């Protein structure tokens, strides 16, 4: 049984009520549920972009949130892929990926950048700007950028919602492979159950801020 990496206890913010969950190292947990159910709020609290009303967040033993403790987002080993990808429009693909590699020697950061561009099959786009790419390509860049600093926890907020259905199916498969290859612990939220079925080890439903008993992958219907 792998060690627990993420522990959330009694977290509350906006619609999220006393939520508790655990994720093991290397595991990918998918959370689905209706819009407004608190999925994005949960991710933002974990990333440090939202201050919970109360509750505790521990990552790899370190308290990120708790009584008297708040680690700002830039000091958390947590990566977040935004729903809109949020690529910096004034930076090329390569510069976007290098943005998160501060404190790494130049040669090393270039090497890491090249590796992730290769992994996400976007090496040939390295010199392009975000507006010169399709939605699918932008999503790959956003993923490469979040993975490059080697976060302990990767958060994905509706990563496929801006893509057309065909591309969506291809990217789900690829995402699963990339996550496995990197071995990064992942928390993915989506309102589409089918996204989770393809990418996650296990899932849970978050509705009106309450996390319902977890559903096993086999019992998971493909769509509501």
């Amino acid at each position, binding site marked *: 049984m792998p060690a627990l990496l993420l522990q959330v206890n009694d977290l509350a913010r906006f619609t999220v009520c006393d939520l508790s969950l655990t994720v093991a190292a290397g595991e990918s947990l998918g959370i689905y549920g209706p819009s407004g159910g608190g999925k994005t709020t949960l991710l933002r609290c974990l990333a440090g972009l939202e*201050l919970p009303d109360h509750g505790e967040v521990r990552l790899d033993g370190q308290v990120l949130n708790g009584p008297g403790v708040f680690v700002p987002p830039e000091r*958390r080993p947590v990566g977040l892929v935004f729903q809109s990808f949020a690529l910096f429009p004034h930076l090329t693909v390569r510069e976007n990926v290098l*943005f998160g590699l501060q404190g790494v020697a130049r040669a090393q950061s270039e090497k890491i950048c090249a590796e992730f561009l290769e992994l996400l099959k976007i090496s040939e786009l390295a010199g392009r700007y975000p507006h010169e790419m399709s939605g699918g390509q932008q999503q790959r860049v956003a993923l490469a*950028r979040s993975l490059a600093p080697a976060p302990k926890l990767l958060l994905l907020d509706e990563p496929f919602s801006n893509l057309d259905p065909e591309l969506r199916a291809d990217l789900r498969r690829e995402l699963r492979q990339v996550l496995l290859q990197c071995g990064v612990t992942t928390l993915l939220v989506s309102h589409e159950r089918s996204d989770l079925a393809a990418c996650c080890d296990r899932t849970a439903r978050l509705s009106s801020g309450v996390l319902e008993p977890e559903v096993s992958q086999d019992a998971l219907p493909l769509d509501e």
Partner: protein
Amino acid sequence: MSKLIQGRRLWLGWPLLATALVLTPLLTLVYGGLTASSDGWNHLAEHLLWTYTVNSLLVALGVGVSCLILGVSTAWLVAHYEFPGRRWLQVALVLPLALPGYVMALVYANLLDSYGPVQQAFRWLGGYQSASEYWFPQIFSLPGVILVLSLSLFPYVYVICRPVFTWQTQLYRDASHSLGHGGWSTLWRVELPLAYPAIVGGVSLCLFEAMADYGSVAYYGVPTLTVGIYRTWFNLGDLPAAMRLASITLLVAFLLVLLERLARRGRYEGGLNAQPHANRQSLRGARAGLAAAWCALPVFLGGVIPVGMLVAWAVPATHGSSPAGYLAIFGQTLLLAAGSGLVITALALLVLFTNRLVRSRWTATAARICSLGYAVPGTVISVGVLAPLIAVDRWTIAQLNSWLGWETGLLLSGSVAGLVLAYTVRFLGVANYALEGGYARLSRVLDETAFTLGRGPRDLLRRVHLPLLRSSLGAAWLLASIDIFKELPATLVLRPFNFDTVATKTFELALEEQLGPASLYALMLVALGLIPVYLLNSWIEKNHARPAAPS
């Protein structure tokens, strides 16, 4: 205070500094207004205060009404109707904004006074021998001030109303027509009420500027509050009385701000995404001629004629005179304006960045306070800045004397630093306004992305905001710098001894009736003033040509 700003508290120093800079002179005036007393003040209050106040209000009222009529009518005509020259006039109607009020005053004084070309022609046509034989409107008068300021300021109303008439009210205009209402009925019952917030905004700007004017009223000899403050300080050397007068002017300025807020409260603020005019109604015959003439009139009176006259007066002055003196003043002013503009833009950026970073009510209020100075006349600000500077100087001199035995003169008051301080208070709002537009278009998700990638606030500012806000920063710097370049009253009061700017030189030479050199300096002001006019036109096209801008 929220834990979200842990490690970011140092940034709060910027809004604190900016608020202190803006509020210190204003609070000094409020305090001075309540406590300062002198014999000069008793004389002022008894004999002159009423005249100053009434004249100021009459100037503001007259300019407000004229600008309302000129600005709204021209904007409505070019938005809805096709007539000869419309495309050209649509752009040209902004041009008079490039001429400061005191330059317009200089032109019309020399054009319309008894020795000017207009009265000379009048005498020649009427066969008169001298000006005493006929009646002619006196330009050196309150109506004269209203005329020149209206010609210079009406584009504020035009610029704000034109996009509203062109892009925002069209859907409702069509609906009104389909319900059987004609042009006039639709204008009164639909379009003007919809454009009301824009009209109030534009007219308020004209009122603020008219209240703040010193150059035109001083040149035309109309005693208003700003003239009174200047005379009380410079001619009588009575700072307490000047402060009390300035505090009354401040009160009037804030009453105007309050009136503007009240007038706009609860009103619909636009946001319609109708299609712009696909086909304007074509006017023919006399109606087309009237529309073209009405729109061309302010362009000629406020742009073509003044610039033409300035060129005509300036050309002879260039013969035999060395350009070195002019260039030195120009360079000196440019350096002062560009440098102060840089300080102001940097401060505005840091205030708005901190507000975005911290997202608290306090920082939002600080950002609003920073914009207050724009509603306050330069003369008032200069007195508000001068009093604390003199106090600091006296204290420093006493300390230097008692500790080190040094004897020095005034250090800060009458220095370039004092001037930069006054400009900062007055024009921080201009830079704020330009940058707020840029920030509104910059998604907060980019900030959050930078944080989740391990970058702190300094990196966010340097590597994300600075490159993405480049054009807004450029616009903020340019607008603040050009406003400083043209600024007259604060510069007159606070400049170091023997220090001239293009604006002070134009004004002083005009007072000395050295028309040629004054016109040369005035043309420098107009040339630089054309830059924001160009920016304004591009802004209207860029921001309103596409009704639904991508988010």
